[in-house]
């Protein structure tokens, strides 16, 4: 165990001596010639995988290879929402495991990730939508997940300022998950990195994988910009670029890469204390502790690796915001940015072996990757360590598209830009 534990006492001690005693949170590791396991991708999922491999499965000879700096991808580009309000049996236990891991994350990692269970409210505007949310809420409760179906009077007590009697989209109520909320996303990457590092995991930054060593159908290591590295097992956790990386191992994936934009406004006084989604458009919003309104909407809808989007979707998202909350009309937009999503063919992720022995895949997170980070790490670590799927991730097979066992929450079929 390297480094110091964080506590109220260490904070007070450092406050008294001008914060001169803090060391780096993780080592600047040089790659070794060989590891038992290599994780490609130093984002939330890759770092979480390395942490759980070391923590729960006793595999500590692990390297996380990151082409840029850790947390430079989607873990720092999302709208920080965590929730487990899913519908289908393949998804609910997995996301609920994730929700439970979020609830104990800070104590587990000894790191302040600002986990805030402020609740998520999905508004409905018609009888048909109410039925759909009643079904979703019932599915959640059958799996032991908290869900409450609110009518408009109950929603009015939470948010009296919404436009309940709007002629076109009246607010009839909402589906509330109180345990859902937000988590400081960069702290998730840093917390997992620090905790993994303390268990002996090497975090190697500025180390891009440029190829795979495959001998007799088995992956025995990777080629990188910092030399070849041997490995007992290689796990890919590079969503956004999964197709590009897997192609180097000769694989073609059921995935398209799409850009999703997100937005933050200037800081304003507290206006919204939970997470809210608009049911008549695609718009979700919460307020950061600094006061900025953090919100987003649909993906742009065309393949992209550019990490930036175009103006029509900016307009569409802001129109959704204005329809839901006309009061934000004079708030100025501070920033917008884009992240690259692995949009899978059924809208659900993949955690599975690949046709190449020793090469494992964690991909296809669409735009639900952030909330899945802890469970994704746990289940991928389980797969890497035991060579069999974790009980909560059995449905996330790579071959489900050939066998017909799709997990299509929205029921739109093999059209990735509609999921």
């Amino acid at each position, binding site marked *: 165990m390297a480094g110091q534990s964080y506590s109220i006492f260490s904070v007070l001690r450092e406050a008294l001596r001008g914060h001169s005693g803090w060391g780096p949170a993780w080592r600047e590791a040089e790659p070794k010639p060989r590891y038992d396991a290599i994780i490609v991708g130093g984002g939330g999922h890759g770092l979480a995988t390395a942490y759980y491999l070391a923590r729960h499965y006793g595999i500590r000879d692990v390297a996380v290879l990151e082409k840029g700096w850790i947390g430079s991808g989607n873990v720092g580009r999302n709208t920080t929402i965590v929730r487990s309000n899913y519908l289908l049996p393949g998804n609910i236990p997995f996301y609920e495991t994730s929700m439970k891991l979020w609830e104990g994350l800070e104590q587990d990692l000894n790191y302040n990730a600002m986990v805030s269970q402020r609740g998520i409210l999905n508004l409905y505007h018609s009888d048909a939508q109410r039925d759909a949310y009643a079904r979703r809420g019932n599915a959640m409760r059958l799996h032991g997940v908290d869900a409450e179906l609110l009518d408009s009077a109950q929603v009015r007590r939470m948010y009296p300022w919404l436009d309940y009697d709007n002629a076109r989209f009246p607010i009839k109520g909402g589906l509330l998950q109180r345990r859902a909320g937000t988590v400081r996303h960069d702290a998730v990457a840093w917390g997992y990195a620090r905790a993994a590092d303390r268990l002996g995991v090497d975090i190697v930054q500025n180390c891009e994988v440029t190829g795979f060593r495959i001998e007799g159908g088995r992956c025995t290591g990777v080629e990188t910009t910092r030399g070849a590295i041997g490995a007992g097992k290689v796990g890919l956790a590079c969503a956004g670029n999964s197709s590009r990386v897997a192609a180097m191992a000769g694989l073609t994936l059921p995935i398209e890469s799409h850009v999703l934009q997100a937005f933050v406004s200037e800081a304003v006084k507290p206006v919204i204390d939970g997470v809210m989604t608009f049911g008549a458009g695609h718009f979700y919003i919460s307020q950061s502790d600094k006061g900025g309104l953090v919100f987003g909407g649909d993906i742009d809808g*065309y*393949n992209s690796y550019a990490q930036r989007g175009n103006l029509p979707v900016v307009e569409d998202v802001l129109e959704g915001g204005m329809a839901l909350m006309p009061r934000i009309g004079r708030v100025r937009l501070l920033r917008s940015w884009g992240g690259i999503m692995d949009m899978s063919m059924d809208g659900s992720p993949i955690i599975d072996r690949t046709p190449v022995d020793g090469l494992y895949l964690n991909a296809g997170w669409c735009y639900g990757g952030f909330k899945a980070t802890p469970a994704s790490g746990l289940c991928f670590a389980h797969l890497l360590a035991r060579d069999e799927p974790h009980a909560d991730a059995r449905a996330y097979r790579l071959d489900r598209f050939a066998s017909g066992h799709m997990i299509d929450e929205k029921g739109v079929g093999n059209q990735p830009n509609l999921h």
Partner: protein
Amino acid sequence: MRLACPCCGERSLDEFTFLGDASVTRPDPSADDAAGAFHAYAYLRRNAAGPSDELWFHNTGCHAWLVVTRDTRTHEILGVRLAQDVALARTGNRKDVRETSA
């Protein structure tokens, strides 16, 4: 990003909708390996980081299907053709189409 429709000229992106990779073609359902070929056709994508051929529909314009060649890393538009012309060229001389769209 603006697309130059061969019929209507350069238009805003919000006039168009995106379908997907234009390089996939419907396999022969009577072939021996039809099940595998249809799996690849329906689900597997090259998802190139770089120039790639895509099917777009000019939804609020002339209703033409287009094959747009676009660099997915930069959103630079490298060419726009009528999908009809591409399909006719493909049935006429399949090899030539592959070469120009590679």
